Each structure stands twice: as structure tokens, then as C-alpha cells.
């Protein structure tokens, strides 16, 4: 396994550099490291945040991500409301020992602080410090601004965000829809809230891969979910996915789904302290499917009750709770999240409630 090696710094303790000399200073950094360090990079990972208090955590996440997914990390703290305009930069490196080898695999990080009007220089800062020919993943850790800088979005290959942190999801999703509309940006939309649902979707799909369980999918009569307060949007996204896949329509007024044969499928979401999402139970007239996640557990408890077959209990991998694990899971994926927009469209009317 990889062993982290601490050689690096944060915005407070990194090596301060002049913005115009960043490439030169990075070159010096690697020259001084000798043959034992190998610089590796698969992507440009740009993180934009306006939360100064969370910067230390952002640094930790980037260090952890770099160990598994080498990248050029560009962390940008924007404080557009600051009274004075100033741009500052720091460089640092995240190195990890590779197995028992003495070689270290290193990723470089450039950290910027853009105060006041300097925050408007964001596109230029990004464009001029990318590692060439590598994809650009932009992790936007703030509310999306309006109007959007079209030139910036046009460069983004993967746009990462976390809808579970939004105060006004309906408005933010409408911006997302605009960004992803034809002719705007080809960026892959990567909602970490959706990424966390991957394990849920995989586990649910696995339950219905079973030949004895599959027929009950067409006769679902009710759904109930349990989520932590503030994470209703996660539960809704999971419901949106199920509804989209099973061709159910939403009756937003009554908070029910309508199946193709006009069968009404009520759903219920309980908000109880615990994991973001802790339970989904699907009932059909004579079968029941349940996925349960206990606090702090890495595994779901899956239960399948179908007629004529003994109850099947199984333990399945659950989403890892740490932010870096979610981000790594997202970065390790290739291709588009083809069902994300479909699922989102289903539940959008519920987000205003």
C-alpha cells in the first residue's frame, strides 16, 4: 500500500511564489528532488472554493487524492467580496511511496488566493497553469455564479459539484441545466451526491439481477426511504433514478409516482439522524426488498423476501463516507453519467418544496 510522505505545505506553509514564475519554481522543486521522486499526472484537478475555513481540509483531500490519482492540483480560494484586490500563489508537492519501493510518486499543487477584483481573473489563472494535454476536472465548491463565464466552462472536461450542500438546489440545478445544454459545454456533470448513490444503485440493481426477484420489479406498490435531516435531496435523487428506470411519472402534488398502467406508487421519506441515507425498502404485493446502512458501517445489509424462496440476506459494499473516497470514486470513473440528468428531471418539481 502507498505510504504518504509529508513534504508539502498548505496555503499558509507552502512555498510562496510569484505568479509569473510558477512554472520555473515548480521546475526547481523537481530538480532538487533527485531521482527518487517521479512526477506523475493524469489530470488537472482545479478546486474552486470561497470557504477559507475549509482550506486545510481541502488540502488534506487533495493530498489524499494525489496518492491514488496523480494530478496537477490547482486550489483556488476566491474571496470576491474582499475590499482589496490581490492575487497570491504558493506551490507544494504531495509525495507517496509506491509499495515497498523507495521511489516516491509525486503530484504538484499550486494554490492561489484571489481577493477582491482579482477573483475575476479566475479563467486566466486556470488557463495559464494547466498541465497541457491532460483533462481538466473542475471541482466547484461554491454556488454557481451568474452569469457564467462561458470560456471557462467550455474548457472543462468534468465538472464536479455536490448538490447535497446547496441551499437552493432548484436554482442551482437550473444553472447546471444551462451549462449542460447543447452548444454550451461538453463537460461531464459529476454530482458527488450522485456518486455517493452509486453503491445504492449497484446494490439495488444486484437485488433484481436475481431471477426470482426480477419479476417483482414491475409490480412495486410502495417505497420508503430514510435519510439524515438535510439530505432529502439524496433520497429524492435515488427515487428519481428508480422512477426514471422504471418509467414512472411523478405526481408532485400528491408526492407519488404513477406507473405505466396508472398504478399509483406512494413513497415516503423519513428524516432521522444517521447516515446521509440509511434505508430503502421496496414492497410489491408478495415480495420485499430492503437495503439498510448502519451508522459507521462500510456495508449494506441486503434482504430479499420472495415467495417460495428462503429469505436471502447479503452484505454488500456501501459508499465510503469520507469526501476523498467519494472524489476518488468519481475520478476513477470514465464516461458520462448517462442517467443523472434523467433522474434529476424526474424529481426537479419536488425540489421547490
Amino acid at each position, binding site marked *: 500500500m502507498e505510504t504518504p510522505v509529508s513534504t508539502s505545505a498548505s496555503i499558509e506553509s507552502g512555498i510562496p511564489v510569484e505568479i509569473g514564475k510558477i512554472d520555473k519554481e515548480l521546475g526547481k522543486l523537481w530538480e532538487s528532488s533527485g531521482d527518487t521522486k*517521479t512526477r506523475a499526472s493524469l489530470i488537472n484537478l482545479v478546486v474552486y472554493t470561497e470557504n477559507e475555513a475549509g482550506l486545510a481540509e481541502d488540502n488534506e483531500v487533495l493530498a489524499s487524492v494525489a496518492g491514488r490519482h496523480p494530478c496537477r492540483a490547482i486550489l483556488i480560494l476566491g474571496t470576491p467580496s474582499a475590499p482589496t484586490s490581490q492575487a497570491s500563489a504558493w506551490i507544494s508537492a504531495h509525495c507517496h511511496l509506491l509499495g515497498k519501493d523507495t521511489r516516491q510518486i509525486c503530484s504538484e499543487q499550486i494554490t492561489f488566493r484571489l481577493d477582491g477584483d482579482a477573483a475575476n481573473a479566475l479563467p486566466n489563472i486556470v488557463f495559464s497553469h494547466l498541465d497541457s494535454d491532460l483533462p481538466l476536472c473542475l471541482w466547484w465548491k461554491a454556488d454557481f455564479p451568474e452569469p457564467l463565464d462561458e470560456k471557462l466552462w467550455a474548457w472543462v472536461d468534468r465538472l464536479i459539484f455536490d448538490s447535497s450542500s446547496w441551499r437552493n438546489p432548484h436554482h442551482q440545478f437550473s444553472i447546471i441545466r444551462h451549462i449542460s445544454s447543447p452548444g454550451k459545454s461538453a463537460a461531464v456533470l459529476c454530482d458527488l451526491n450522485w456518486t455517493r448513490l452509486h453503491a445504492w444503485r449497484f446494490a439495488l440493481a444486484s437485488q433484481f439481477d436475481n431471477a426470482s426477484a426480477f419479476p417483482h420489479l414491475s409490480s412495486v406498490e410502495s417505497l420508503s426511504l430514510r435519510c439524515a435531516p438535510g439530505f432529502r435531496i439524496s433520497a429524492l435523487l435515488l427515487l428519481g433514478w428508480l422512477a426514471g428506470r422504471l418509467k414512472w411519472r411523478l405526481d408532485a402534488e400528491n408526492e407519488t409516482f404513477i406507473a405505466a398502467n396508472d398504478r399509483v406508487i406512494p413513497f415516503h421519506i423519513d428524516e432521522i439522524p444517521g447516515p446521509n441515507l440509511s434505508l430503502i425498502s421496496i414492497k410489491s404485493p408478495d415480495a420485499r426488498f430492503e437495503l439498510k446502512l448502519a451508522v459507521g458501517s462500510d456495508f449494506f445489509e441486503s434482504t430479499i423476501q420472495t415467495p417460495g424462496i428462503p429469505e*436471502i440476506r447479503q452484505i454488500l459494499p456501501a459508499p465510503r463516507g469520507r469526501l476523498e473516497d467519494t472524489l476518488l470514486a468519481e475520478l476513477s470513473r470514465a464516461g458520462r453519467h448517462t442517467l443523472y440528468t434523467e433522474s434529476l428531471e424526474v424529481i426537479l418539481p419536488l425540489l421547490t418544496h
Partner: protein
Amino acid sequence: MPTDILRSNPLREGLAQRSIPDPCTLVIFGATGDLTHRKLVPALYNLAADGALPPAISVVGFARRDKSDEVFRTELEEAAHKFSRQGINDDLWKNFASNICYHRSEFDKIEGYEALARRLDEMDSTRGTGGNRLFYLAAGPDQFEVILENLRKSGLNKARPGSWSRIIVEKPFGTDLPSAKRLNDLVENAFDESETFRIDHYLGKETAQNIIVLRFANALFEAMWNSRYIDHIQITASEPLGVEGRAGYYEKSGALRDMVQNHLLQLLCLTAMEPPAGLDADSIRDEKVKVLRSLRPLTGDDVFKHVVRAQYGAGSINGKRVAAYRDELNVNPGSVTETYVAMEINVDNWRWAGVPFFIRVGKRLPKAGTEIAVHFKSVPPVLFRATGESIDDNVLVIRIQPDEGISLRMSAKMPGSSLRIEPVKMDFHYGTSFGKATPEAYERLLLDAMSGDATLFARRDEVEQAWKFVDAIHEAWTTRTDDLALYSSGSWGPAEADELIKRHEGAWRRL
């Protein structure tokens, strides 16, 4: 059909992971052996941890020793702790282990199989395994015949309607062509070819699978993958280990039958084959068989011109003195078993005319490594002749293990006012580029067998064609023994092997 259900499960769409196989029971014959403990059970546990196993699965260990389910599970847990590529989670292990049980029986007693059949029926009804059975022959090859015969007699080879019954056969698939044919006949008596999965674990390795992607998903390489641009290809499998307690088996097999007949010829096939019509099992295996049929046979005197066999003498490995092969425990002091083979193989088809494939495999070599090195032809010696610079040829290296990856050697100008050309290496390491842990070969292969996907398994005609090629070499070796060279442990093999490749104006790569 279950496969249709998986295809139509609308919840499956858009998920990165593959479909979950049908519920089933895996019966391991030889369950107390090394393979079960080191590879199979850790692989199954890792699959469970990844959520890749079916919701209902049972594992039955079938072996001769007397032990309870509980003792068997405890032994497997210890092994999983030791050999699993990821840590063991107690809850998950407990859940996984509750599906494991032990069935004691002699391999040659039909009653044991009849009792097994009853037990499997009961498990189907109590655990929902649906009558699907996967039998794994992990016992010694001398037991294969009796196990297959008893599976047939007890009717375990026949699945109920709507269910399936499959068999996984571990190598060696025979010891020569007649015994391989006999084994294949025995398997065929009990199982259809579509139900038979012959494991060559090299094919389960990510890098072996990546050969197909590298060749056919990159225009850069495939356009140059022929005799016009390639000078020769070297395939190496080296290990510092000696026979390590396997002398009984190794004395009878030797490096040729232990490694070349299966692993190395499989790698050669993947390197040399034409683009398949599709990625399905038979399309790929058809192309591999065509390569094996195109191998220029080595017989009689040709064997001694194109094949070098050798045996390790005393020497040192990692600074420690090690004994000669003939001084190893249970080895005949006058043994002529080869622990090293180097050979020149020609693939007589349009693509590879005039391009030799040099293969070498050996024990007690300085380091462990398996790789395929594609040596491209030299550029015309025109442009840089006047500078007196010698230019190294381009070499594309596919490292199968360890440190899986791909590197490309090319020439570059050294910085400075004079024209000096030096070789530089572009290197891609799986470990560096993909943070994701590489699954063990057995994980992939077990899952494929449960899913009925035979792409990474050897087909009957492949195995027999490979034996045909290897048998001819072995037959020539039986006529004399004076060609057996010796090499010091810790060296890269005998001088004769260097001479073999030197005739082509080449040299073995330094790993």
C-alpha cells in the same frame, strides 16, 4: 433465461460494474490444498467485498481429510487474512463464511458424490442457489479422472432445466498431447465444451487482457504490428525461486511443460493473433488457435538448433547461497529436467513472416518478471551516419508482472550544441496511473466462470495444439541429453541461450 433477465434489468444500465452472476454453489475438489487457501478463497472474499458475488452463493469444500465446517472456515479465515489483497472485515467475513461448508469424502467413492448431490439439493432449497453448480478441480491432476467419472455417475454434471452445471479445470491439462486428449475426452464425457473452463491464470491478469486493448484500441501500434516494422519479439518469464517443495511435480514436467505449453504460448498468441471478429469467447479463441496452428513445428535436429534447455547449478540469489537443482530435496541427483528454456519460434503466416519470437523461461534467475518486448526494426542508417552515433532500436515492453505497465524506448537528442543521441524511456505504470487496486487473476476468472464467459479460458483445440508443438520438442530431447546446459543460480541463464539470439544479431533484454 437468466442472461436475458440481466440484460433487461433496467436498474443495471449506466452502472460501472458488471452484472452479478446467477446464484450458484461452488464445489471445490481439493479444498484443503494450497490453491484453495492462497488463491480461491481470498479471491471469493474480495469479490464479496466488491459486491460482485450473487446474492445467494454457497461454497462447498470437498476433500478427504476429516474436519468440521467450523474448522474448515477457521482455516480459510486465517488464509484470507494472510493472502487477501485487502484487509478482512469481520462482519463481511462472517457473512461470507456462513455460506461455506465442508464435505468429507474420498475422491474415488461414489457415495461421497451421492451425498454431495443430496446436500446440494438441500442447499438449493434452503439458500436459494437455484440448482446452479460450478465444480472446481483444484485437486492433484492424478485425481481429475476419478472426480470427473464420479461427477458423471452421480448425475451432478447434469443441471436441472433452467439451471447450469459447469466445471473449472486447473492446469496442467495433461502432461503431453495423448494425456491432454484423454483428459479432454473425460471432461467432454461429463460436460459440454461450453460448460468447461480451463484456467490459465496468466489470462486473468489485467496486463494480459490489456494486450488486446493496446493492440486494437491504439491505431499507433496496430499499424506497425507486422514484419515490415518489427524485427523480433522477446517473451520472458523469469523467477528467482527454485522448485520450492514441488520437486515431485517438477521433475516430471520441467520448464517446457510447466510454463511454455500454457502461459508463454498464451502470451505469444495474444501478441501475434489477428484482430478477432468480436470480443466474445470464440472469436478470440479462434484467432489464438490460428496462431498456434501457424507455429513452425520444431522437430528432430531443428530442436537442438532453436531450443536451449538448461538446469540451474549452485549460486546465489539475493546474496544467499542456493543449492543446485540436483541437490534439491526429492530431485534425482542425475536429473536432466530443464529449469530453463530459451527458444526461437517462427509464426508462419503473412503478418509474421521472418519475425522470430524468442521465448525464455527459467527458475533461479536474478529477478522475477514476465514481459513481452517488441523490438522494432532499425531506422535506415543514412541520416546520422556521419555523426558516428549508434541509434538504439525502438522497443515496446508490455510488463505482465510485477509492476504491470508499458514502456517505449525511443531515441532523443541530448541537450547541447553537438548532436548526441541517447535512448529515453516513456513509462506507464498501472500502479502509478490507476490508483485502483488491480484485482487478482482468480477473481476475474471465478466471476467469468460463474457468468459463463469463457473468453479468458483455454479451449480444447488451443490446449491440444499447444501440446502438439511442445511434444515434438520433448520427443527430440528424449534422444539425447548432452545438450542440457548448466547455469549458475542468480545468472541470466546459459551462454547457449545468448548464442541463440545472437544468431539473429540480437541480445536478451535486461529486465
